[in-house]
């Protein structure tokens, strides 16, 4: 219970700077997603109180956007670009290779919480596709080997 209280007060601290901002709910959701890794039920309650919304209204907003997750995601998030320029550079094959290598479908997280694979439509790296974003880094002319190597380097 004590742990729960600490959690609630840290959520309050994350949300607080955004409550006076015009349209502060989006930046608050981003901050929680970044700090906590997902938007928990506790976070939804706290957001509802802070912004004077119902919990349903907070849910209404957060479920619209791909970036907000109600489940914890993996430690490393792999986003495979599936937009047109990457398609022309065989991104569909790369998607197949990566999902089968990790044994995950798109939008799934591995059992050990290490990896989440997602699709994304355009990373703006269209000149050197196919592109894969791992956390905040974009890999151009990506291949399965490049992705694996990058993850190994991240581990170190």
């Amino acid at each position, binding site marked *: 219970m004590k742990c729960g209280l600490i959690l609630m007060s840290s959520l309050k601290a994350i949300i607080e700077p955004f409550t006076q901002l015009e349209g502060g709910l989006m930046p608050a959701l981003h901050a929680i997603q970044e700090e906590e890794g997902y938007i928990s039920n506790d976070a939804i309650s706290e957001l509802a109180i802070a912004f004077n919304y119902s919990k349903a209204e907070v849910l209404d907003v957060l479920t619209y956007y791909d970036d907000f997750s109600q489940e914890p995601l993996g430690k490393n998030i792999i986003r495979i670009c599936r*937009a047109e320029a990457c398609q022309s550079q065989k991104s569909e094959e790369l998607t197949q290779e990566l999902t089968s290598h990790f044994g995950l479908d798109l939008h799934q997280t591995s059992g050990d919480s290490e990896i989440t694979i997602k699709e*994304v439509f355009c990373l703006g790296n269209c000149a050197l596709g196919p592109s894969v974003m791992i956390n905040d880094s974009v890999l151009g002319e990506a291949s399965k080997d490049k992705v694996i190597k990058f993850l190994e380097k991240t581990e170190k």
Partner: protein
Amino acid sequence: MNTDLKIYIPNETTSNSVGANDLYQKISSLKDIDKVKIIRNGSWGAFWLEPFIEVEKDGQRIGASFKGTDISHCITIDDFMIEFENKSPFDIRDIEFIKKQKRIVFSRIGLGDPLDLSLYQENGGYHSLRNALNLDQQSIINKIKESGLTGRGGAAFPTGIKLQTVYDQDSSIKYLACNADEGDGGTFSDRLIMESDPFALIEGMTIAAYAVGASKGFIYLRSEYPLAKDYLTKAISIAKENNLLGNGILSKEFDFDIDLRIGAGSYVCGEETAMMESIEGRRGLVRSKPPLPAINGLFDKPTLINNVVTLATIPPLLNGSLTEFSNIGSGKSIGTMPFQLCGNISQSGLVETEFDISIGEMIETFGKKTKSGRPIHAIQIGGPLGLYLSSNMMSTKLTIESLQSIKGSVGHGGIVIFDDTVDMSEQAKFAMEFCSKESCGKCTPCRIGSIRGIEIIDRLQENKSSTKDIGLLKDLCETMEATSLCAMGGMTPNPIYSIINHFPGELTEE
């Protein structure tokens, strides 16, 4: 050792995606590196050469592509210089790809550290704002009208008229919202401005805000661009420190501030009314127009909405380039357009040029041939709501008028090349799939129609000549086009029409 040796290593998403950051780490740990000045510059936009490293000594600046180069054997800076010289370095400004462009808006990218305010000012930066603050608002708007500039985000609406409408509103509070939700597949021009010349956007926003009387600006940046976020955050704070943003800008009675807001992975939020919903903290549902955002926009106040490149075009227009710009092209297609040449093409990158160029010339002059070495089969122009051209349509001009006449659009200037391994029925299906994933859900033809579209194309892939399914697909496309509130549902049929018309027998056989 030459003490005034400078090494330029780009810090830009595409350059970093193929190793610029790794090279920077290695080079900065070389022995004697303290005798050299390392500059993280922007990219010149000749992306196929990245990571392109330049060395400047004795006033001469030359560079070479380090693509796939392993420099782990280098111990000292001299070792690196031997490696560099072995690559026969050249001045990138001398290559045809750069020389044949007309860079007015992208004139500074690659030059140096994008956050170096002095460099920005030495190269024409902030002259326009200084001039503008001495002019009355209407005369700035008149100049922009005179220039013929139209919105570079996709809709090509005359920028001057938009400014005028916001200016004409009688309201003590007005907003400016910069649409930096560059979501079309095959586009990166906004990103390149934000990462490689961010003050150009900030200056453009400040001038536009002054012209219409807005005191607060938002930049709605897509979350897929973390490096742009980093650059903009820093550039905004540098501008504030230097009295170029905030209260009493350049000691004049003009206050303007910029708030950076981050999107959350929704394509439709690049549609201006959905973007406003998102900034206000709601689902990105499209609003019906009227009222126009210029009259009743963000938080119910008059709001000027423009995309990044459009706003970044304003400073050069007020700084001596107006005549040069407005003398290029005719009709609606005035000035330069930053085309983004990408996909399966060997010389990929940013090409700022006139609209009046055929797709064939564009490829011949700038892109050359496919990366795969196979023949070109299809060219997508204008993003997911644009159209596909076939390889026998190389004389098609890239003007707004020419593409409109074949039910396409220049859009945001993306050009994606496909070789002959592409399956056009898959591209048609993707158009529907993309719409089904990104639809905001407000209009039924877009939300449900796109799913029915996928199913029909699935069946056509089994039997191309099913008259029933061909009829259904055409009906569906017409319905989506006629009854969707915004371009998402309304223009998703465009790529499909183009595949039916220009690739006979590949999706349908009649």
